[in-house]
């Protein structure tokens, strides 16, 4: 009975501490998700593809897009893969990836509110250092067009064998989500060129259906058909639509149009799923009608329109759903650690270990190792960082732990499937070097600050 009471007491204290952490960061979390969703809707990602070149400008633009992208490491990892596949320079693609978890506005706001401004600064400046190390390192390791040659050989290998990204031999479904590398589900199935592809979510199924050749070895121009209950495309954008015949597809929400709701625009009949979509189109046809080559881009969504805010709400909710496991795991881990581990004793051990000079640097690597072992990514790490700070872990090692969320094994698997092996190995080695360097620099810089 006594043991049961002890367990219940510990669980109660852990849950209470987790709730306190959540309450302390709720407004930061909300503001972060809202800002991130708003900029994702207002600034279309196709602009990134246009500017993601290998020069300094391309790397900076990619980092800027990373800062405003979704803060879950899995989403940007899938986007990086797609960017690289569509011809973006590897340095710009990795710059986007690193920025999306280390310079992301949602994470920075959360750091500021939960752990303090020094951490937010270390996260931001450290991200820039890692990008500099990775981009410079790749230029040195693969000089004079080496990166492009690597890509050409990889693409050639992808076409001649179905190894890695292509579907396996045989006619069975591809059960692994080719967008993110996770286990797919038949509920989110898309058929391309006679083969079924399963996805972990409707969002990834929609992404794949919009451009199958960007993710799998399928004939260029192959169209996708969705299974019942398949992808739910993002409303109001031209992206993520399943490949239905153009005349049957509602260009506002991407669903099947009905002849009952038809609007004629510039000599063409557009069908819609409902009167609401037809009205949205009639109010602003230039925004939804597919632009012919040479036509100007559709206008950017206005923050004064209710439709834009519905998209923002959908995007924010999508991000929360993508991150829910990480967030719950992060808050519970940090809450239970705070309630049950005596922070002073933990701090004393660390202090004793860290006072040996060489061990201080080992702590940076240890930070990375803990990140890899815990599997918690991006925002879920923030409450854990707060606990580590309270326990006396030096800022350098703590922030290196945060950088390490790009090294968790599911993501490494995605890199292996997305990039040539030599590029993956170089990126991982450069990232670890950059993360340790950034941790050490930020430790010194924040010591010098008031």
């Amino acid at each position, binding site marked *: 009975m006594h043991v049961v009471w002890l367990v219940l007491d510990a669980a109660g204290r852990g849950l209470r501490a987790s709730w306190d952490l959540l309450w302390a960061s709720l*407004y930061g979390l909300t503001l972060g998700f809202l800002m991130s969703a708003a900029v994702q809707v207002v600034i279309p990602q196709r602009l990134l593809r246009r500017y993601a070149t290998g020069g300094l400008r391309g790397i900076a633009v990619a980092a800027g897009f990373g800062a405003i992208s979704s803060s879950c490491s899995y989403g940007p990892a899938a986007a990086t893969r797609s960017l690289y596949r569509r011809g973006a320079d590897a340095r710009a693609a990795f710059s986007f990836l690193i920025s999306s978890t280390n310079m992301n506005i949602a994470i920075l706001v959360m750091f500021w509110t939960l752990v303090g401004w020094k951490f937010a600064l270390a996260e931001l400046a450290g991200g820039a250092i890692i990008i500099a190390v990775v981009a410079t390192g790749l230029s040195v390791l693969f000089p004079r067009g080496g990166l492009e040659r690597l890509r050409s050989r990889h693409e050639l290998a992808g076409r001649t064998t179905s190894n890695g990204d292509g579907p396996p031999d045989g006619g069975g479904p591809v059960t692994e989500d080719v967008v993110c590398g996770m286990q797919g589900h038949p509920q989110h199935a898309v058929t391309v060129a006679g083969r079924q592809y399963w996805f972990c979510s409707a969002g990834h199924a929609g992404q794949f259906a919009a451009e199958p050749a960007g993710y799998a070895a399928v004939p260029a121009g192959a169209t996708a058909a969705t*299974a019942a209950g398949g992808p*739910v495309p993002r409303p109001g954008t031209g992206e993520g639509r399943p490949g239905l015949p153009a005349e049957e597809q509602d260009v506002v929400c991407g*669903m099947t149009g009905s002849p009952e709701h038809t609007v004629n625009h510039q000599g063409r009949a557009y069908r819609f799923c409902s009167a609401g*979509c037809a009205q949205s189109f009639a109010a602003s046809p230039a925004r939804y009608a597919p632009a012919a080559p040479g036509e100007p881009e559709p206008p950017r969504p206005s923050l004064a329109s*209710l439709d834009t805010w*519905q998209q923002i*709400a*959908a995007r924010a909710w999508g991000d929360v759903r993508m991150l829910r496991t990480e967030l719950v795991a992060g808050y519970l881990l940090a809450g239970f650690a705070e309630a049950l581990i005596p922070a002073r004793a933990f701090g004393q051990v660390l202090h004793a270990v860290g006072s040996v000079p060489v061990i201080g640097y080992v702590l940076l690597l240890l930070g990375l190792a803990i990140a890899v072992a815990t599997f918690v990514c991006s925002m879920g790490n923030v409450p854990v960082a707060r606990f580590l700070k309270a326990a006396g872990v030096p800022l350098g090692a703590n922030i290196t732990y945060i950088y390490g969320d790009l090294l968790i094994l599911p993501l490494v698997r995605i890199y292996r499937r997305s990039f040539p092996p030599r590029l993956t190995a170089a990126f991982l080695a450069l990232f670890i070097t950059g993360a340790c360097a950034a941790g050490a620099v930020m430790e010194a810089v924040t010591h010098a600050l008031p």
Partner: protein
Amino acid sequence: MSFDLIANVVALAVIAALGVLYWRGRRHHSTRPPGGRR
């Protein structure tokens, strides 16, 4: 009242508003699932 309390009350109001917007958008777009099947 503390800053945290005021900020979190505003945050809860924002979450509720986003929830209503999301629900309205979803209700409107779920009238016809893809493929025309229910």
